């Protein structure tokens, strides 16, 4: 593991378009908050969540392994996802409310990379092919169209970048973007199904 020094982080920050990264991050944060009231932001602006994540990386609170699998941008995004998950979980704990299904719209499994949940009971060891088949059937039942199904199939084949998926599906990235948004909403029940599998 080779933790990037402050100097290396500064060099990296100066070598990328940080405005674009912040735009991408804010887009993500806004989607995560789309069904929330302003009150739930606790006075923070959307950009504050993004800024705090980058600040933590700069200050070494979150350490980027420059020789690891994740690029700087991927690391920042993973940190943002994790921070938001913790933020929502904390809010839920504070209000002692039940699982709000709307919170899970964007991410099917937000907690896979969080240490704190590693100790949780592991779900049954289901066969990968069986889960894929079952999920595709489930998405069709939810009214997923051809493109949404194709995107899902691309993910299962290991294609994750919108550009390569667009090429494979013979369409453009804007269509892929919109289809993924629709797809995210259809995964709400999927999330609930997985939770029930764990219990």
């Amino acid at each position: 593991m080779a933790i990037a020094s402050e100097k290396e982080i500064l060099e990296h920050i100066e070598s990328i378009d940080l405005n674009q990264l912040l735009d991408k991050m804010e887009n993500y944060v806004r989607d995560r908050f789309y069904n929330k009231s302003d009150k739930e932001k606790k006075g923070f602006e959307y950009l504050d969540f993004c800024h705090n994540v980058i600040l933590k990386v700069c200050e070494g609170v979150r350490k980027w392994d420059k020789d690891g699998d994740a690029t700087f941008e991927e690391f920042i995004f993973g940190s943002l996802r994790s921070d938001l998950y913790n933020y929502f979980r904390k809010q839920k704990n504070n209000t002692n409310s039940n699982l709000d299904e709307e919170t899970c719209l964007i991410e099917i499994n937000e907690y896979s990379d969080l240490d704190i949940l590693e100790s949780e009971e592991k779900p049954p060891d289901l066969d990968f092919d069986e889960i894929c088949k079952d999920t595709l059937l489930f998405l069709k039942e939810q009214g997923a169209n051809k493109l949404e199904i194709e995107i899902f199939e691309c993910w299962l084949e290991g294609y994750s970048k919108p550009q390569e998926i667009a090429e494979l599906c013979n369409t453009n990235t804007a269509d892929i973007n919109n289809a993924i948004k629709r797809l995210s909403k259809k995964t709400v029940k999927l999330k609930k199904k997985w939770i029930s599998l764990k219990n």
Partner: protein
Amino acid sequence: MDKFKELINKGFTQNYLSNDIENIHDNLVNHGVDLAENKKRQDKLIKQLKFKLRSSINEEKYNTLLIRATESFQDAIIKGLEKPVAYLNTLIKENRVAVQYNKLEKLSSEEIKEIIKDQNLIEIIELLENEQ
């Protein structure tokens, strides 16, 4: 199940991270964001981030120099090198630094740091290296 979740999660994340910037901007505009105004706020934050990083890097550099200069002075005192010792005495007089001992050998590294902290450390290190 984990492999499956990982693939799906990656697909969702990459849609945000790797999507064309035009699509991202369209989404932001749909969220009611004024892109020009947003850029101004971002630029301010980016400036703050870079400033903070540079300050921290400079502080680290300065501390390294301070330690190096202090060690060189301690070495020069032990060896009784004339010029560095005279220089240190001048600094003590000029800065009116209150040191606990009259004898330079008894100065602690913290006291030496206190004496030289506002000086040009690179010049001091050069002076000491030339003398040794």
